[in-house]
Each structure stands twice: as C-alpha cells, then as structure tokens.
C-alpha cells in the first residue's frame, strides 16, 4: 500500500464530498464518514511498518517525500480516528446549519492536511501541508459568523506569523545543509554553532508554539476553540494543536537529536529548561483563567492550553519517562478533550446554542448518556485513577520529582488542582443542580452524537486500565529517538524507582467502590423532595430564582481575576492597533496633491544624484 494513496484519498475525498453534496445530501454524509473511516482503517494497517517514498517531484528542485514509522503512525492514526469521530458527530450537529457541503469539505481537508503533515518526510512538504491546514482551518473557524469572525482572523494572522518564521527556518536549514529531508538533516546540527541552533529553534518554536498554544503565543486558541462549530472544536483541540506537539518532537528528537538538545545551553538557561518552564507556565496561568470562564467551550479551550502545557513540559524535559508522559498525554488529551467538546456540543445542539454555564443545569436527567460521557471525560482530564489521564500525569510527576525539579512538579500538581476545580464547574453547571424550566422538554442527544461519546468514554477507561497498549507504541518511538526504553507491560510500567500497575489499582478501586456502595446502601434512606418544593419567607420561591449554579466559585473569582487578565492578548491587540495607526499615518504621504507627487519624483532623483556626488557610493 502506498502512502500517497492515503493522501490521494484524503484530498480527493474532500473535493469529492463537495460535489457529491450538490447531488445528494445523504450520499455526501455517507461519503464523508466513509472517507474518514477509510483513512483511519488504512492507517491502522501501517502499524509497525516503516516506509518512505517520493510522492512528487514537480515542486522546484525539492523531491517531496512521504514516510511512515511508528512515530508518525502514532500521531496519524490518532488524528484519523478522532477526525472520523468528529465527522460522525457532525452528522446531526451540522444539519441545521447552512453550507453543509462546505463544512464537510473543509473538515476533510483539515484532516487530510494534518495527515499530510504527519506523513511528510521533508520540511518542504511539511510546510506545504502545514499551510494548507492553516487556511482550511481558518475557513472553518469563522463558519459560525458573529464573534467567530474575529476569532478566525486572530487565528490566521498568528498562524501566518508562525509559518513565515518557520519558512525562514526551513530555508535557512536548506541553505546551510543543502537538504530538507529529515533523515539527512538528522543530527547535522551537531556541528553547528549553538547560536545558529538557537536561531533555528526560535524560528521553529514561533510556528510550533503558536499552533500548540504555548503560553505567550496562545491568544488565538480560546476564541477559535470556543467559536468554531463544536465537532470542529473537538478536532482543533484534540488533534490540530497536537500538530504543534508533533512538530516539536520532530524538531527536538528527529532533526536536532536529543544529545544536541540536552547540551544546548547550561543549567537554568538551557533550552531544555526554558522550554520546560514555559510549559509549566502554560499549565498554571491558563488553568486559572479557565476557572474564571462562564462559557463552556471557552473553559475547555483554556483547559486545552493548560493540558498542552503538560505535554510540552513532558517532551522538553527530556527523560524517557517524561517524553513518554508527554506523548501519552497527547494521546489521552486527544481522546478526552474531543469527548468533552462533543459533550458540550451535544448540549449546545439540544439547547440551541447555549454555552453559558450560568444558564444551564440539571441536564443529567434529560441527557444521561451525555452526562456519563462528560463525567468520564473530566475524570480523564483530572487524572482520576483508572482513566488514561492518571497514567500520563503519574509519569510526569514521577520523573519531575525523581530528577530534582520540585518547582516544575509543583506547577504540574497545582495545575491538576485547578483542573479539578474547573472540570467540576463544567460538569456541575451543565448537568447537576436544578434544571431550568425552559429545558423541561429537552430530548436526548441523537444517536450520531451519542455514538462517538460512548466510544471515546470507553476508550478512556480502556486505556486507563490497560495503559500498556499505547505505551508500547510510545516506547518503540522512544527507542527510535535514542532514549532509554521503559519496561512496559500491558498493565503499566515497571521500573526501579516506582512501578505502576493498573491491575492492582483496578482491584483496589473496585473494592473501595463496593465498600462505598455498601455504606450508602446500608445507611438510612433520605426522603426525596421535589425540586420546587421550597419555601422562603412564607411563600413559594418563583421557579426562575432557583439557580445556584450562577456565579460559581464567586469569591475565588473575585480574588484571582484581577491578576489573570489576559495581558498577552492585550499586548497583541495593541500591537495590531499600532500597526493600523502606523499604516494610517503612512498613507498620509499620498496627499492627493499632485504637486507633492512631482516633488517626490524629483526628490528621489535628487537624492540619488546627491548621494553619488557626495559619497560616490555607486
């Protein structure tokens, strides 16, 4: 099987979907799902193979190369699967909105270009697919109109900023080493001066960091994630920003190589440490900003930034356990964040676009399956044992503590506490508490939404109990990077410094669960009281006054919010404003008076002549 066939199916399928939509809506839906599934299935067959092929030679003098190995397989497969779930989820979500052909085409295009990025074997094709991804994402983010327009423009400007920086990096590498192919480039930077390596690093990190929403470059993410259509938010959060992660791993462990990376700078000012600290900051600040959000998707968006911080922290820290945790967390985050966005999307779908946490509540009775999905999702997000998030977070804490980085470990832990707070807010304000009266008639989410929610929930539990499945893959990736391999079994990791075995945990949790259940069973039954069976000051409380999920964490909110304004965003906005003003100022030289214009011409001529007579420059 050829790798280029995957790309052909992906890109061709995207176009085909558009035209099939002109013929029949049904056929288009089926086609879209089919294409995404087919890609996932084909990719599954590539498990544990490695191949490399030149798929196109027509672009200037660069042969464009596709390659697959365990590393790219892992990412590509995750992306393809999450992508197809999102498309299944979209089936009913998007039906009510207009422009469905366009939606599916762009969605498939985004997925196709992401897979293209992962599979490409040289930096030029990486860049080409990267840019295709950027603009197709842009066209989809603004799909909802209204505030989504500002979100889209913010995204694309930052994205273009990043990609031009990366382009300079790529071309600079090419001009120094005469090649852009990973395998040939690999390790060549060993001999480069550290200044040059840092130059390359900075350029790539602007691009990758923007995509991955690392802290000072994150500002596009909250509006984009919250305003995009929910299934696409799932793709954005679950997979698209992970392209940045992929790029960072690629840069550090494939192109630069681990030994060069670890030797870049010393102590506090080493590249490794700086990136790790950035990761820690990316965990802390966004976590607490997430706490302040009242918009469900915006909350999830900030949470995404924070979780991306864990991934970066793990990857940049550079020990084999931390890298494993980073990659495993990438995998986990893709699953549970996609799940959570789908849960929010399902609620949004049924309530006609309500995402405000203050006006929801009590939906547990109306949408039980969705609630369970949300519960498992936040369990994974927090890292409750028996969910996949537990294992990855355990790994990162462990490696940080063992390798004497208490502050980083503390940041990671603090991030988890914050995560618990905001996740609970999310779940509570949507599903628990009182049901507002207007939602009495709410129906369950449609099957096409429940299906991906259920499957992803099951996946969280599955990989929580059997973390060895993905860890095995991750381990073989790591050995490819030249990191020490871990000892993996299906239930967990064995090592001298601490072993994790989910079987024991499973049994323990199971027993504790039974105990709790027994205690509740044995204790006295409480009387059931109706929701509106309430009195205050001698009269019945009006039904619309019943909402205690408003102003959740109010005191905390008031305490921390002054410190947590998004100063970075303000900075970028003022930058944009000053460029605008500069442009408006410069425009004034075209005064409209043709006399001035003639003077400009003479000025130019006189300047040239003057310089020549005076200094004989030319």
């Amino acid at each position, binding site marked *: 099987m050829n790798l280029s066939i995957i790309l052909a199916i992906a890109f061709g399928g995207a176009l085909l979907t558009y035209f099939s939509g002109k013929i029949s809506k049904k056929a288009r839906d089926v086609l879209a799902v089919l294409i995404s599934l087919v890609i996932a299935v084909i990719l599954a067959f590539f498990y544990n193979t490695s191949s490399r092929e030149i798929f196109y030679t027509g672009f200037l003098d660069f042969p464009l190369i596709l390659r697959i190995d365990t590393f790219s397989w892992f990412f590509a497969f995750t992306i393809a699967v999450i992508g197809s779930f999102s498309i299944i989820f979209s089936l009913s979500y998007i039906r009510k909105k207009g422009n469905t052909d366009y939606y599916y085409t762009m969605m498939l295009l985004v997925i196709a270009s992401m897979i293209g990025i992962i599979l490409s074997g040289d930096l030029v094709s990486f860049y080409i697919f990267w840019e295709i991804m950027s603009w197709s994402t842009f066209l989809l983010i603004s799909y909802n109109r209204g505030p989504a327009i500002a979100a889209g423009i913010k995204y694309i400007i930052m994205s273009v900023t990043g990609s031009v920086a990366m382009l300079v990096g790529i071309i600079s590498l090419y001009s120094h080493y005469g090649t852009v192919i990973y395998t040939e480039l690999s390790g060549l930077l060993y001999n480069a001066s550290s200044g040059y390596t840092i130059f390359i690093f900075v350029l790539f990190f602007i691009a990758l960091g923007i995509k991955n929403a690392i802290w000072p470059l994150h500002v596009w993410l909250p509006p984009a994630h919250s305003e995009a259509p929910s299934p696409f938010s799932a793709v954005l959060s679950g997979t698209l920003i992970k392209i940045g992660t992929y790029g960072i791993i690629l840069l550090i462990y494939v192109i630069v190589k681990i030994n060069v990376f670890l030797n870049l700078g010393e102590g506090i000012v080493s590249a490794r440490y700086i990136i790790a600290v950035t990761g820690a900051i990316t965990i802390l600040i966004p976590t607490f900003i997430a706490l302040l959000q009242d918009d469900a998707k915006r909350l999830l968006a900030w949470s995404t930034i924070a979780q991306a911080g864990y991934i970066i922290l793990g990857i940049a820290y550079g020990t084999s356990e931390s890298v494993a945790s980073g990659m495993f967390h990438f995998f986990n985050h893709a699953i549970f964040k996609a799940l959570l966005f789908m849960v929010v999307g399902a609620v949004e779908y049924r309530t006609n676009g309500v995402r405000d946490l203050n006006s929801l509540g009590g939906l547990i009775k109306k949408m039980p399956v969705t609630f369970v999905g949300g519960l498992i999702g936040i369990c994974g997000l927090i890292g409750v044992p028996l969910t996949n998030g537990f294992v990855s977070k355990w790994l990162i804490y462990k490696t940080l503590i063992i390798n004497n980085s208490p502050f980083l470990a503390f940041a990671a832990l603090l991030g988890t506490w914050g995560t618990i707070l905001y996740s609970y807010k999310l779940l509570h304000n949507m599903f628990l508490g009182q049901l507002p009266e207007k939602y009495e008639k709410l129906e369950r989410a449609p099957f096409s939404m429940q299906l991906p929610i259920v499957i992803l929930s099951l996946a969280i539990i599955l990989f929580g109990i059997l973390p060895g499945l993905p860890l095995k893959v991750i381990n073989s990736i790591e050995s490819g990077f030249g990191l020490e391999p871990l000892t993996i079994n299906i239930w967990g990791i064995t090592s001298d410094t601490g072993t994790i075995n989910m079987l024991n945990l499973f049994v323990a949790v199971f027993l504790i669960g039974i105990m709790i259940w027994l205690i509740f069973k044995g204790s006295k039954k409480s009387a059931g009281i109706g929701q509106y069976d309430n009195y205050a000051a001698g009269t019945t409380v009006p039904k619309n006054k019943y909402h205690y999920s408003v102003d959740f964490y109010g005191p905390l909110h008031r305490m921390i919010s002054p410190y947590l304004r998004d100063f970075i965003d303000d900075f970028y906005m003022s930058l944009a404003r000053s460029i605008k003003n500069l442009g408006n100022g410069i*425009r*004034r030289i*075209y*005064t*409209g*008076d043709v*006399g001035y214009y*003639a*003077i400009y011409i*003479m000025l130019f001529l006189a300047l040239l002549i003057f310089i020549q007579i005076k200094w004989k420059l030319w």
Partner: protein
Amino acid sequence: MNFLSEYIYYIGAFSLIFIGLFIVLAKKNLIKVIIGLSIVDTGINLFLITLGYIRGGTAPVFSKPGLKAENMVDPVPQALVLTAIVIGVAVLALALTLAIKLYKHYGTLNLRKIKEQKW
C-alpha cells in the same frame, strides 16, 4: 567666456527644462502645469538638437550638389526630435482634454483643491 560659447546651447536647453519642471512642482493651476510640461518638452527637444550640432554645419539634406557630408549635422537627433514633438503634442492634447473634463467636474483647475483621490 569660452565656457559660455561652449555650453550656451546646453544651458539654454536645460534652463527651459528646469523652468518647466519648476512650474510643474510649484504651480497650482493645472493649465500652468501643463504649460510647464510643454516647456520641459521644448527644452528636451532643443537639447537633443544641440547634441547633434556641428560647428558651421548644414542640414543633412543633399538638396543640391556641392554639399559636403563632413559639414552636415547629425540627422539622428533631428529624427528623434520629430518623434519627441509628436509625443509631446499627443500628451499635450490629452492633458488639455482632461483639464476640460476636470473643470467640468470640479469647477476649478486649482490642483491644491482637487484632492478627492488620496490616501
């Protein structure tokens, strides 16, 4: 005053050119600007003619026998000037036409006031 006799024609031609350019730069009436452009053209034509001149030369026309080729001035600048004149006329005609139209629209030929197209 060897210099003057050597360069007087050049000085004359370029004086015209720079007078014209000065008018274009400094005057605000469109008609005057067009006149300025026309003066520049004239100056350039004179300059071109001067380039080909030979002391004591005759026109490069063998209209009667006895004219010596050595004494004839360079014919090429004259041909160029012919072309340049025509170009000048064309630009002048177009400029005046535009001026007429401009006056219809704005009611003025003051270039400082005709500033709707800007920025």
